[in-house]
């Protein structure tokens, strides 16, 4: 008997389909922000080390100009983005996001094979463009809108990478992006 069989056999008392649906009806009041949504989103992303810039001018030039010392820029919003061979040389990568979450400042990003995954993890700076209309209040709503499994990898990103592993001192910029700016459009 292989391990798969052995494990399933050991768990046989739990080997039956659920009769009831576990999905909750959210029968309790969850935190909602109403008109305050954008402000709450901004506050949460900024306390996570990100920066929120409200603007409708989100051309590659405008976005790049907001970062200091930018070298190679890749704009994944383009039909066929110009991506260099060595992605670790990219200093700024630009993404668009269909969804943002007010309660924690997160944005949803899915490469879906349009560009290499490492473009989200290697560049020192990230820019994400999202519309204020696409901000939801909380993660329950967010998970209702995204489709896990449609693309091989989907990520909620809430700011630049960070760590507090050295005596609880918060340091922005661990392995991933050191800088993350969020461009909020109409």
């Amino acid at each position: 008997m292989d391990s798969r069989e052995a494990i399933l056999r050991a768990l046989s008392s739990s080997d039956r389909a659920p009769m009831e649906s576990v999905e909750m009806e959210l029968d309790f009041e969850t935190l909602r922000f109403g008109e305050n949504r954008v402000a709450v989103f901004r506050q949460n992303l900024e306390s996570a080390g990100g920066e929120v810039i409200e603007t409708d001018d989100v051309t590659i030039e405008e976005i790049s100009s907001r970062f200091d010392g930018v070298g190679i820029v890749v704009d994944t919003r383009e039909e066929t983005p110009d991506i260099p061979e060595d992605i670790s040389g990219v200093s700024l990568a630009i993404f668009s996001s269909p969804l943002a979450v007010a309660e924690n400042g997160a944005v949803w990003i899915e490469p879906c094979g349009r560009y290499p995954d490492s473009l989200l993890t290697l560049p020192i700076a990230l820019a994400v463009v999202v519309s204020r209309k696409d901000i939801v209040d909380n993660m329950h709503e967010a998970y209702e809108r995204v489709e896990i499994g449609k693309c091989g990898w989907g990520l909620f990103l809430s700011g630049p990478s960070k760590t507090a592993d050295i005596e609880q001192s918060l340091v922005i910029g661990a392995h991933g992006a050191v800088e993350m700016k969020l461009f909020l459009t109409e």
Partner: protein
Amino acid sequence: MRAFTDHPTEASRFVSDGERAHWHDRALWFVRAKRDRASETLPEWERLREEAHRIKSHTMKHLAWYLRLFEERATANGIEVRWASDALEHNEIVASILREEGVERVVKSKSMLTEECGLNPYLQERGIEVVDTDLGERIVQLAGDTPSHIVLPAIHLKKEDVSEIFAEHMGTEEGNSDPVYLTVSARKSLREKFLTADAAITGVNFALAREGAVTICTNEGNADLGVAVTKLHIASMGIEKIIPSAQSLGVFTRLLARSATGQAVTTYTSHYSAPEEGARMVVVIVDNGRSGLLAGEESPILSCIRCGSCMNTCPVYRRSGGHSYGSVVPGPIGTLLAYSRDGERYSSLPFACTLCASCTMVCPAKVPLHDTIYRVRKSAIETPTYTGKRKALSLIYALLRYRPLYLTAMTLYGWAVKYLPRNLLYSGYNVWGRDRDMPEPARRSFSRIYDDIERREDG
């Protein structure tokens, strides 16, 4: 590494450096306080905990069914699913996959399961370099040490300690203990490791049965970086990591980071349902004793989401440190995990607890931690280590049961406290008396006083 003796011995060692013990206690209380503030931002916090508990309990009732569903969906997505009965088999599976792909260098993000299985030494013995990329884990790896907390692996080290470790192993400036400098240095050094690695090994925070996907939560982005720059992703998970679907993640992602560090969410909440084009992804499902817990009174511990909040709130953990538990996962949940695995070796852990119940109050999945610790004491007291204690308690039982014995003992005690020379009363045998005075019995007991009350009332 020194062999584990028992919790009291290790804890004494930790506490003997009073200043450091207080520093450690304050550091962890600070994390508990951050959790409190985060929980207060959600009026529905207690309701969410109840939901998490409900979802996990439901999942455990149908665990095998959900595991099958996960395997079916993940496989359809292009993920290979393997099963390991125990730690050794897990390591063998991982090693064989690495060998198949000619892997020589691995980057690994935080996975308590791989620690539990002893994966690092197993691979290293077979000539495979394993670099732990989580900063805290990298620090302890370089130091030849082990993590002392599941979320904050290097919480027991001061920045000066880290500076020394990095100076020795990474060539950083001696005496420079600035956390930013040290982190940037680690980033540079680890970036090189990432870019020359052949495979990435990660843990799994939540496995989604319906979608056939795994969710990984980090602040550093090290899991995602490793997966993105290599062509082989091995994700190791315990069988209990399954949840029904992504809809449940609404509950868990709102609870996890707030409970762990007081943040609203981890910087990276990543969902992998298929390897990137041209890459390979394998999920290894591991039992290693978990299935045995499902039927017993320890089954609630399978609901743990590994947030670490029980450690942060435990007054004993804060003052004794993770290493004093002698186990991969320390603190209240670690006590139960370790004890269930090896009751003899870890028999002191269930007694390294005052049953204050703070752990149960903070657990996002409402695991009844202190209640379960209370329950396992029934078997723990029967282990050889506690023969002496059991005898002492039997003696106390006799005293409490039989009044004449009790009165005699109390009289003797009263005499001893009053008349014994101090150096005899407080000799080495008197464990209480080392740092505390002996309480003195009153001149008259309440029973005697009540005699007078009754007499007075009868007139």
